[in-house]
């Protein structure tokens, strides 16, 4: 990957969240990701930016897509990538997160990519290690690379983010994707709406600078981007919403509801999708859907993040 014009332009040791990033920080990452897209589309995809570096993917929650996306990103930059999932670690045997962090730290990795079910767990780990840490999702808190890849996808298809109406729909309450996206898209000047039944909205969400809609038809009106969120199975039956069919009726994205959005509206989903729950197959596979492109952008964004952090690593 060609070196970016201003190597000091991403002044962070870790990527723990979108919160705390400035607009220029975000734009640097997106610009670098554009270059990574080009690299990934060549036959020869491998670069030497992270040659000799060790990347550990530490996933306390299993996630095939995110983990393989980070793995591919690291390998394309030349890093040695090691995947650790909880099932293979001693965490299940009662070792604490901090002990795990200290043990891994002793192996002298250069970057650790962490996913954990608890909000703040990645911050905790970052305080105990000497290397760079990337948050690959912590509880209901943040999932910064997802928000970056969503922004990149939007920017490439719309040419801009400033001034767009983005509707984020579904289980906002439990969604780290929603939180990171709200912060990032607002920082880049988009107008963000959230659309959900009140039982799936966090308290005080309106104070995060979004417009709140409990009626999806109103929430989609004139939207330039419709971002759907996954509804976890255990929340479907009576806990937060009465049933799958009722949820799909009022909050599932089908062709009829999508017709209320701008005719050129983009449809996005962080995956994995529940077809027939939050999204209808005809829409998921339809001409407005960018769901597959999001996956491609995911690798590019993660390459950009790893490269940006690598520049701040010692001996670079």
């Amino acid at each position, binding site marked *: 990957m060609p070196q970016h014009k201003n190597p000091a332009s991403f002044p962070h040791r870790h990527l723990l969240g979108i*919160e705390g990033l400035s607009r220029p920080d975000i734009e640097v990452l997106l610009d670098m990701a554009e270059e990574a897209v080009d690299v990934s589309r060549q036959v020869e995809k491998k670069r030497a930016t992270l040659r000799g570096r060790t990347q550990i993917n530490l996933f306390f929650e299993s996630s095939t897509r995110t983990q393989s996306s980070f793995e591919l990103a690291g390998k394309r930059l030349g890093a040695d990538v090691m995947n650790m999932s909880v099932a293979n670690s001693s965490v299940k045997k009662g070792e*604490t*997160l*901090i002990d795990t962090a200290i043990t891994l730290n002793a192996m002298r990795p250069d970057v650790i990519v962490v996913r*954990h079910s*608890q*909000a*703040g*767990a990645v*911050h*905790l780990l970052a305080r105990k290690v000497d290397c760079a840490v990337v948050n690959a999702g*912590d*509880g*209901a*808190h*943040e999932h910064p690379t997802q928000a970056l890849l969503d922004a990149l996808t939007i920017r490439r298809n719309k040419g801009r983010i400033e001034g767009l109406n983005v509707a984020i729909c579904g289980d906002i309450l439990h969604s*780290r994707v929603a*939180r990171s996206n709200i912060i990032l898209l607002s920082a880049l000047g988009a107008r963000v709406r959230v659309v959900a039944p009140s039982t799936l909205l*966090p*308290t*005080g*969400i309106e*104070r*995060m600078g979004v417009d709140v809609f409990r009626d999806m038809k109103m929430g989609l009106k004139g939207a330039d981007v419709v971002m759907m969120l996954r509804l976890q199975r255990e929340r479907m039956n009576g806990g937060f919403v009465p049933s799958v069919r009722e949820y799909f009726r009022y909050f599932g994205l089908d062709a009829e509801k999508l017709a209320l959005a701008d005719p050129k509206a983009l449809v996005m989903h962080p995956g994995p999708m529940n077809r027939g729950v939050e999204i209808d197959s005809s829409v998921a596979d339809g001409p407005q859907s960018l769901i597959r492109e999001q996956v491609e952008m995911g690798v590019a964004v993660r390459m950009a993040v790893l490269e940006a952090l690598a520049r701040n690593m010692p001996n670079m």
Partner: protein
Amino acid sequence: MPDTIPPIALVNGLLVDPATGAQTRGGVIAQDGVIKAVGAAVTRADVPVDMRIVDCKGDVVAPGLVDMLAFVGEPGAESRETIASASAAAAAGGVTTIVTRADTNPPVDDPAVVDFLRRRARDTGAVRVLPSATLTRGREGKEISEIGLLMEAGAVCFSDAGRTLRNAQTMRRALTYARDFGALVCHFCEDRDLAAHGVMNEGEFASRLGLTGVPAEAESIALERDMRLVALTGGRYHATLISTEQSLEIIARAKAAGLPVTCATSINHLTLNENDIGDYRTFLKVRPPLRREETRRALAHAVADGLIDVIVSDHDPQDVETKRLPFGEAEFGAVGLETMLSAGLRLVHSGDLKLAQLLRAMSLRPAEILGLPQGRLEVGAPADLIRFDPHEPYIVDPEKLHSRCKNTPFDEARMQGVVKLTLVAGAVARE
């Protein structure tokens, strides 16, 4: 014991009497476990030459603090705290009486456990350690504890400590039965379903951190129910730890209606707010959760006007291992015995409370509610006395705390107020 303790005179102090609010330059003579003389007339010149004299150099002299809510680890959790370590922390912090929480292992639901605690306190405690007993057997919320026998053994109040009685019928019977014995029912108010999985105050900040919140209603719904049951039964009721404006309204209404109700809040809820959690600091994870700054101020005002009767330390030692976890998985609780006075003095220095109001809520009122003679600066009262300089600055060093656990929310905080001398029954517990 008292006859072997030499008398001691504290002179040249600023006597602060929580009962009257009076501040007088003068001294105190402690002899045979009680206050022999007190007031402006007690000066160095009047003290017999063979008596030990402490020149207080203008420091405050006041009754020792009475803490109604502290976990001391015995029996069953001696790795977290013992009576010896808790009372050393207490003595260092100016606390001369601790009421211990009953959620031990086994719980304090049997007169033999009360007896055990009293003997351990006598043999290993540097301050007075008084057991509370459970309100229901095994803290299971089903059958009423042996309130009469437990009182006879020395239990000073009854509480299921951190567990709320779900069953209103059980609560009604407990209050009714306790009334016949004049027993004090202490209750921690938290609706278990509303608070389920909650780890911090519900609101914008919790939403931003991605943490599950506990709404104020989890506390106030349980408290409101209890007020109806107190009205129904006439039982004496003390809300162990309230933390919300809604609860203040409920207590105010109950008191205005003449119900036999008192309440406490914790030093944490008076001096910290949810923002202090910052970057997921687990030492600030307490139950009920720290609330918003406006709420903290409302609680401080309620202490000033006496609506909140008592300030507790809510001392809850936790192993570092159970705190060095992601916020959602970490244990609740913070140590507080040793820092409660200096933390409370923050409210005095900020002008929210007068010194006498603070000391009233930390000594006289809890003593009155428990039916103890402590908290008074008068002849014949127990010589549980402290001398402290309310202005001397220090920085909290967790490693220097006497508690076996170092989970203080005031880690490296700047404080003012240093205890110079603690007397329990006229004997030096800490100097």
